């Protein structure tokens, strides 16, 4: 884990995988009612890369994200976060991995209603008994334009501001990977575009690794690469995506 934290500080050379899945299978249910949500997925996400996972509903994109992020365990196959194999870890060990090495931005309900913005941002670090690097904290907060919102409760923030607080929380601990699950799903298009620019900037300027699940081709166009999923299998990828090329790719899946 120490080598990982070292890697976090120096921009990782492109080509080295921050996280990868090998032969990942996830089966829900048993016997005849069993559903193979993931059916043998091999995929890599490079450090410092912004990747979007796309696919029609039921393609398994959320399940893939949950397994990659250590929120769910795969039926078989392996998930490697750097050198750490997540597949064999206990619940507590997985939790600690999430706390220390993974950042999350969910579609909604990202923040604890009882904590103000600052406490929400610092929560994962506080859980680990650490405090945020003040310079880095101020930088992230400034970039996200949250400086005057830190003492506000989530109920006093707009939807866009709430999502930005979530992004700040995901970035402030400099995780190995940030997972964003439909981060703009509940936002108006302007706030959505703003948020995606922040995510993009965190990759381009700060060397952060971001994996985003989305069904919105315009959102996916912010990524450096789009991974397409259909029926729990990898169905191709698009590098340097545009909204049009993503739409075309999705159409090719029959979506």
């Amino acid at each position, binding site marked *: 884990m120490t080598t990982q934290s070292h890697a976090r500080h120096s921009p990782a050379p492109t080509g080295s995988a921050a996280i990868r899945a090998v032969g990942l299978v996830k089966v829900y249910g048993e016997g005849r009612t069993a559903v193979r949500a993931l059916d043998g997925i091999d995929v890599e996400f490079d450090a410092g890369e912004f990747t979007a996972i796309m696919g029609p509903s039921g393609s398994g994109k959320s399940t893939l994200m*949950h397994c990659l*992020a250590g*929120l*769910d365990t795969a039926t078989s196959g392996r998930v490697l976060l750097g050198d750490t194999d997540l597949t064999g870890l206990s*619940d*507590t060990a997985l*939790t*600690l991995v*999430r*706390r*220390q090495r993974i950042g*999350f931005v*969910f579609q909604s*309900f*990202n923040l*604890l*209603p*009882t*904590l103000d913005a600052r406490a929400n941002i610092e*929560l*994962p670090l*506080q*859980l*680990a*008994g650490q405090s945020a690097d003040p310079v880095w904290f101020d930088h992230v907060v400034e970039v996200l334009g949250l400086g005057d919102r830190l003492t506000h409760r989530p*109920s006093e923030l707009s939807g866009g501001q709430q999502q930005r607080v979530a992004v700040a*929380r995901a970035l402030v601990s400099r995780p190995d990977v940030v997972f964003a699950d439909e981060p703009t799903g509940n936002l108006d298009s302007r706030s959505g575009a703003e948020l995606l620019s922040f995510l993009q900037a965190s990759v381009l300027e700060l060397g952060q690794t971001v994996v985003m699940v989305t069904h919105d081709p315009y959102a996916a166009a912010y990524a450096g690469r789009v991974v397409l999923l259909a029926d729990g299998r990898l169905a191709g990828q698009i590098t340097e995506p545009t909204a049009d090329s993503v739409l075309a790719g999705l159409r090719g899946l029959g979506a």
Partner: protein
Amino acid sequence: MLRITLAGVRLHPLRLVLTGIVVVLSVGFAAGSLVLTDSLSQAASAEGAPKADFLRFLLLMLGAVSLIVAAFVIANTFRITVAQRTREIALARTMGATRRQVATGVLIEATAVGLAGGITGVALGVAAGSALGVLTADGFYEVPIVVSAPAILWSLAIGLAVTVGSAVHPAIAASRVAPLAAVRAVPDGADSPGAGRVRVRTGLILSAIGAMLLMAGAALPLAGYGLVLVVPGAAICFLGILVLGPKIVPPLLRAVGCALAAVTRPARTTTRLATANAARNPKRAATTAAALLIGVTVVTGFVTVAESARSSIGVILDQQVPADFVVTTHGGGGVPATAIEAIEALPEMGASVSLYRTTATSLEIGDVEVAGLDLRRYDQIARVTGDGSLDDVAAGGAAIDDVTAQRHGLAVGDPVTIGDRAFLVAFVADLRSLRLGGVIVPPEAFTALFPDVGGPEQFAVDAAEGVPVAKARAAIEAIAQELPDVSVHSNIESRQELNRQLDLAVSVVVAILGLAVLIAAIGIANTLSLAVHERTREIGLLRALGVTARQTRAMLGIEAVLASVTAAVMGLVVGVVFAWAAVSTIPNLEFTVPWGRLALCALAAGMLGLLASAVPARRAARLSPVAALATE
């Protein structure tokens, strides 16, 4: 509407089970008490003995405490479920359910719980009451078990009334849910802003009136009638505190949480989260606390008054020299001089004193108790405090107690005439130290004044230093046995006997009040399990962000402990204040706070809180983050 009710039943089965248990416990106690006292009264009247009316009164008063606590728990449960079902209710309203139908739905559920819990409670109560009745019976004393229809019907009716009555306010709240709430985002379990102005004003006025009555009863010299002011004062004051609850409880919770966070450094974040959760919903927190507050206040008040009584037993063992042994006689003529000489000669004996007593008329005072007593010898057994000189009394003066002195305006140097002899007051004794009222003169003066009285009424003697009481007692009894009509009793032993009886009474009452505390703990478990349900997504988020299953469990455990300890601390403070007021109204009673027992009480409350959190906390820890995040 019934269908919606049933859907709700499926939604949180645990809540209904716990609410049912609360009804079972409180109704069961009432039914059991009625059956037991009916049976005992029947048995007593068969023997011409007095009925068990006092026991019945006591049990029903204690049962009322449990019922009140139960009402709080039930009301809170229904209020929380209504809040959680806001969307569901609003949906029913959009589809044409009337306000009345919505309210009826809640009341139907309450009736079902009240009936089911009530019937179970009556059955268990009757069984327990009968069993106790049978246990009371022995070879001489037959107890026929009387299970009367009124006892059963009353218990059932009370259970139903408490359950449905507690659900009325939540039912009204449910009927006020607007159809539009179905589409509006529901705030995360937050209810209306805690305390309105009216509430604060009402609460403050009630507390102030109550406190004034309490103080007046405690401070005014009402000769034992102060309780008439103190009891209603305490009740009104307590009501004020309950009304102010939503304003008082959250800051207290935060304060206790802060203190706990300082102690539990490694778990500080968990503690902070728990504190925020405990205080996030002022009304809910206040009602949860109120249930426990009632129980703890009553227990504390009772234990403190009992402890004060215990420490004042010496005062209550009135008119007796506080020596280890007191020798008295049943026949006339007082304790024979031979006995006194023989006892004084024993090597096991230490300081001793004789007490002569009679009633006489004094010119200055009127009818008064007159004692012949060597105060210097008495002083060696029990320290006498007051103004003046004991030597002057021995030289032919008189001593009077301070209460008599005050009442008749007498001081050192004033004359007191008894019979045909005038004494000068040489000492004004503190009644608390002397325990003897009236005029005290030297024994020689007494025997000269009242030659008919004969020997001393009491001869008091201490065991010599270092001699065990049991050994001294054996020696003194050997002498007493040879003399007719002379008996020895040990102050220490009667004190121990009184202590034992007091301990027994305290244990029984505290055990019964423990039922109320148990019900309050179930209330905490219930509130917490509903909170877990309500905060499923939040818990999922926390788990995703790196809160371990263990920390989740700890978080809920701490939340429950905070709730219970805060309520307990409030109850301890309020209970001690009430007890102080009550004790102040009774002359001769010395206010004593049983710190050890009270600390134990707070500890027990904390443990109960932790226990109450066990099931909901385990459920929360088991939530899978993915599933929890996906819930609506």
